[in-house]
């Protein structure tokens, strides 16, 4: 269970939001909405433990977030964390290993298939288009079912309709299995969720 109490964040001395309280339980989807610069990414980075809140706290299963929390959380930021010199497969293998996910060759292949990039597996990432790059980054979602909490920053940006459908299906499956998902998005992509809510950050 992810819980924030009176969470407040600022960037460069500018207050973005304050007094943010929410609790996220199993099967819950939280959409973070807001205008450009309203602090969606900052909120997600704060939830991931990358940015320190200026006030309030983030708790996971009742405890302040720390090393244990990072073992149960997947964060995908704006930047795809894809290395141009490595192949799509090597990039995914590294991402999966660094997150300590269990995997096998067939599961990795499966993940690439689910994102529709299996035929690009051995291609150096420098030849990928923006959308393919994003797909390669999102492929780890197909292997991250064991992590209860997903934090996704603009997962649908740069994706075509087919990829959006694939990613939203992965998210829906994760939620149906009792996972939790926080995402920021400008598009209102439908995701089937047992519990869904949205917060609108003030401009």
């Amino acid at each position: 269970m992810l819980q924030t109490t009176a969470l407040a964040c600022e960037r460069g001395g500018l207050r973005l939001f304050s007094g943010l309280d929410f609790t996220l339980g199993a099967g819950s989807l939280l959409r973070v909405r807001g205008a450009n610069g309203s602090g969606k990414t900052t909120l997600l980075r704060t939830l991931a433990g990358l940015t320190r809140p200026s006030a309030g706290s983030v708790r996971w299963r009742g405890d302040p977030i720390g090393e244990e929390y990072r073992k149960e959380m997947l964060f995908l930021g704006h930047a795809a964390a894809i290395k141009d010199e490595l192949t799509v497969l090597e990039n995914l293998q590294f991402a999966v290993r660094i997150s300590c996910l269990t995997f096998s060759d067939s599961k990795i292949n499966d993940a690439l298939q689910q994102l529709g990039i299996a035929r690009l597996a051995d291609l150096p990432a420098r030849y990928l288009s923006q959308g393919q790059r994003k797909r390669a980054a999102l492929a780890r979602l197909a292997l991250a079912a064991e992590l209860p909490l997903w934090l996704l920053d603009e997962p649908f940006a740069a994706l075509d309709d087919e990829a959006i459908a694939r990613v939203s299906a992965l998210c829906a499956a994760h939620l149906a299995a009792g996972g939790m998902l926080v995402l920021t998005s400008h598009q209102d992509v439908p995701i089937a969720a047992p519990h869904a809510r949205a917060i609108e950050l003030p401009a």
Partner: protein
Amino acid sequence: MQAFSLIVRRELRLALRRKGDVLTVLVFFIVVASLFPLGVGPEPDQLRAMAAGVAWIAALLAALLSLPRLFAADYADGTLEQMLASPQPLAIVVLAKIAAHWLCTGLPLALVAPLIGLQYGLDGGALALLAASLLIGTPVLSLVGAAGAALTLGVRGGGALLGLLVLPLFVPVMVFGAGAVGAQQAGVDPAAHLSLLGAFLAVSSLVGPWAACAALRVALD
């Protein structure tokens, strides 16, 4: 430990795929060290006396050339952020990056240095000692340099700032590294110099990664 070798292997693979980065540093080292005889003149005794100092200065500059890239690429493409949000302790990530940096810069420099020494007419003992001092000293450059690279991450003109920040810290390493060869040439036992280099290595392997971790957390906040 698994994460350590995972990151080192990946860094080495990346270095293999962009050999230019590694070769640039190595060629820079050789060119700088080879410029001195051209500028100073071919007097053999003079060259022998300055050989170790020149090799060490060239090594410092070559290390400085490679340091800005240590975290910059991972910072820009989001890899650093992923590592920070991963279950891996940041200290392991930083230590692995430092180890890979040394394998790709410090180690080749130490291995090539005897060739530079030959140009300067050093004898066998002095050549071995030059390589040994670089083998002990260049990890210090990577360890201390990592802290500097992390501190200047995302700063405009970070490369120049990095030089101002770490070159003064490199000075003791250079003094005792070059001093070891000088002592041997003067007929004094160089063990004391090498022990001091070892002490620098011990201290910097504690302080360097710790400072780099703290600076990375701030840079990514």
